[in-house]
């Protein structure tokens, strides 16, 4: 098991996939991090020296990811809500925000749009 930013990962997992499990890191950021430390895309977590893992953890801790990113997003929605804007209201009502029609499919909006949005 390898410990990256408070999470444990199996040694045979790809580092790129491990990084992408963090909220706020996708293909772009994981590619950037790999490039920064000159790690090839097929590297497994277990192959890397501890120093590199520590460097990656340090890099991740400077980024706005996970809880910080979630809080940031919630704050943004809350701001809209507090202003009393249309977008804020739509968020609060769990309805589509960007002018979509609401006649048939608004499942995603119902699931996600709320003032205390989780992800």
């Amino acid at each position, binding site marked *: 098991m390898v410990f990256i930013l408070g999470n444990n990962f199996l040694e045979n997992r790809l580092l790129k996939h491990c990084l992408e499990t963090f909220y706020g890191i996708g293909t772009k950021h994981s*590619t*950037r991090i*790999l*490039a*920064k*430390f*000159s*790690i*090839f*895309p*097929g*590297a497994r977590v277990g*192959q890397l020296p501890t120093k590199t893992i520590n460097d990656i953890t340090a890099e991740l801790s400077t980024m706005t990811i996970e809880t910080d990113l979630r809080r940031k997003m919630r704050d943004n929605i809350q701001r809209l809500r507090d202003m009393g804007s249309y977008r804020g209201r739509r968020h609060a009502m769990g309805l589509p925000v960007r002018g979509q029609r609401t006649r048939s499919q608004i499942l995603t909006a119902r699931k996600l749009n709320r003032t205390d949005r989780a992800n």
Partner: protein
Amino acid sequence: MANTNCLRCLARPAFPSPNILNATTRAGMGIQRRAASKLAKPSNTQGRKNEKVKGQKTLRIKKKAPVKTGKPPAPGERKAMRKRIVLSNTNALEVEGLRELDSKMLGEWEESVVRELQAGEDDLVMQGALGLLEGEGGEAKGEAKVVGKVVALMGSTVDSLRAVEAFKTTQGWGLFRRPGLLIREESVALSKKLILSEEGGVLRLVIDGERGTGKSLLLLHAMATAFVRGWVVVNIPEAQEVTNAMNDYAPLPGTTPTLYSQPSYTATWLSQINKANLALLSEMELTLTHNLPIPLQSNISLSRLCELGARDPDVAWPVFQAFWAELMAEGRPPVLLSLDGLSNVMRESAYRAPDVSLVHAHDLAIVNHFVGYLSGEKELVNGGAVLAATNRSHAPRSKSLDLMLTQLLEAQVGEEEITEKDPFEKGYDSRVEWALGVKEAEASVEADVEGVETASSPSSVKEVKKEENVEAAVEKVQTVPGPVEVLKLKGLSKVEARGLMEYWAKSGVLRKTVNEQEVAEKWALAGKGVVAEIERGALRMRI
């Protein structure tokens, strides 16, 4: 809407007749007429067949779980199976009277090289690969018997070739009793050039040609020649493995522009080099002092040095550099540096620099090393050759490489107008143009022409004739260092095709009489003798 009930008696039918239903569901004009026609013939639409009725039983077939037989292959087993090279087929017949590609045969070629030189044919050497081939035409002498014959590879050569991964899975080695090579005109010419280059002049050659024309096999032939002649062979078997970002990499400190080493690939490569050239390397001892990150005894052999590098990927690259410095020291044997799949290294690699831009393949230390020698930037001090083969079936297209090859070929043949860059085309690569040095090529082609004139002048011929010593004669007519030569492979000649098919027939793989008609048919169907197509037509697609 028509009523289903009888209008006279107001009684409902117990079971509504389908005919009535049919009639009544049709609205509009002409109901009665249609109803009458429906009544006349029995309806065959008795309700929808696929309609689900509640409580109706349907046939449900449960999927069976796949039966587990044996245990699944272990990690790496499938890949090993995929990469497996079979070099022998015990069911194939042994071909009698098969000559071996040994030092005796190469000695004959060497003699003929010397004879040609003494006969004043030295200009052939100057003109590059094609010139040599054209000159070969009518007056092939000692090797005429061998051209179009299949020769077997010696056991030791086979081991070495296997170690440098010269055999590929796509080639049909597994069909025959023992590995053999067809000797074609080009391969004789190449062997002769290799023999010539032993004396210090370096042969730099790109083997190009359509798909299936035998580029990789010509490379293999060159390697086999080199092994027999006692050269050190350093081969990059598959260029895409170096550039496709499947190996770890690390920036080399203190290099501008930054070069990237590939520790594990280099380690494996070193062990391959060691295994292939074991007999030679184990007899060579260190002569220089090296500053390596590992402690090193001063009296170890080069083979041991390679082992040390192969054992530890972290020091593999410095060890390789030390190994190479040793090879370039005085009194070492010639070196054959070869690579298959050139276009993979003539473009950007899949690796990324810290600023997320793609690393150009020439910035990978291994490729940089190879390209340095191919472009003539660095010299193989003890003689030898730098060969590269292109790949035309599974390789990226490099526009610049294609352009360079065309230009070099045109310059080689001596065409007046040389193809220029398409001004509307994007995607040319200046580094490729630098590496294959077309300007340098043009300049040295002129030099070549001058050289030919001087060589054919009576004084130099006399000089050559005076020299009875073979080596001195060889030394006189070195190629002018300059262009990368291009050898454009085409299909086999009919003689060669016949020789090959006769070998197949003797091996019992081709069960047909090999006559002129059969050969001509296969040769024509294979796009004028493209050798892989002949094989496909004759051996693999047999019904």
